[in-house]
């Protein structure tokens, strides 16, 4: 039998994170669309770069850290808890949304900048693979199984998914790609962006990170509630089954007493 599901209440800190995320997002949009000047080379198209790298950062690094960390901590016997399993599962689903948005916003930037919506570039292909793997993880999670088996299976799958993350990160260094290298930092940690553009990008990173934390928190609550309802339904089914059995035994004997060996599951 699995451990009892602790059902979470509404969390005030999560509401605060959500409000801060929305405020930071508003500031990012305001700065990105109206305050920052057009780029010397890219013109107004550079405004997309205030949201695309932050979305990609969440999709790759924050999701990767939570999914891999949660899965490792679940697999490690000393720290094994369904908390880590649920956290990793929540991160992967939120990560799939951010991976899809990374591809869409990148494509909307690529069409005018490169002349194509899509190319089989190493960075783009490995990011698309990440999205497919995340969808596969979600499908695997829906396969009926004992909670412990499902959790172990999903933890291994999440660790396999996270192997793709360093490949996405280093793809621009390992292969000759159309996608440029680091947007903010080059390998020597020299900044490519300055002034108000840097501030806008920084607030963009903060905004999407806060939104990620809020989405992760709410998705975790959904995961816990699903498991709790599943436990309750199982308990109800068992109780109903037991009642049916005892009624049948009572009717069969006619004396209302259960016969030895009959009825008990």
């Amino acid at each position, binding site marked *: 039998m699995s451990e009892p599901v602790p059902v979470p209440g509404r969390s005030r800190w999560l509401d605060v994170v959500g409000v801060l995320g929305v405020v930071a997002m508003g500031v990012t949009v305001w700065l990105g669309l109206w305050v920052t000047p057009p780029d010397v080379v890219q013109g107004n198209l550079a405004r997309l770069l205030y949201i695309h790298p932050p*979305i990609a950062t969440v999709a790759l690094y924050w999701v990767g850290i939570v999914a891999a960390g949660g899965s490792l901590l679940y697999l490690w016997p000393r720290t094994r808890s369904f908390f880590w399993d649920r956290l990793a599962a929540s991160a992967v689903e939120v990560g799939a949304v951010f991976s899809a948005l990374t591809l*869409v916003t990148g494509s909307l930037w690529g069409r005018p900048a490169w002349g194509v919506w899509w190319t089989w570039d190493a960075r783009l292909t490995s990011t698309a693979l990440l999205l497919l793997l995340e969808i596969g993880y979600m499908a695997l999670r829906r396969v009926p199984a004992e909670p412990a088996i499902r959790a172990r299976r999903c933890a291994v799958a999440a660790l396999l998914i996270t192997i793709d993350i360093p490949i996405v990160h280093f793809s621009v260094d390992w292969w000759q790609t159309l996608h440029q290298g680091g947007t903010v930092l080059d390998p020597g940690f020299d900044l490519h962006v300055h002034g108000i553009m840097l501030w806008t990008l920084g607030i963009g990173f903060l905004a999407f990170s806060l939104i990620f934390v809020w989405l992760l928190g709410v998705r975790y609550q959904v995961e816990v509630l699903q498991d709790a309802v599943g436990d309750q339904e199982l308990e109800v089914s068992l109780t109903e089954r037991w009642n049916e059995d005892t009624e049948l035994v009572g009717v069969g004997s006619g004396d209302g007493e*259960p016969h030895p060996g009959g009825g008990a599951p």
Partner: protein
Amino acid sequence: MSYVDAGYAVALGALFVYAVGLVLRRRRWERALRVSEVPVAETESAPGPGERL
């Protein structure tokens, strides 16, 4: 609509729709949990496995 406007609209719109969907899912599961708790409370008086009537 420019590519920039489309990018912002798609990103913010998709996140908004996903966030609203999550909140609705949480509400639905909270309701389901409340509903599923009622029969358990009602059947608590019934004999459990191994108990005699």
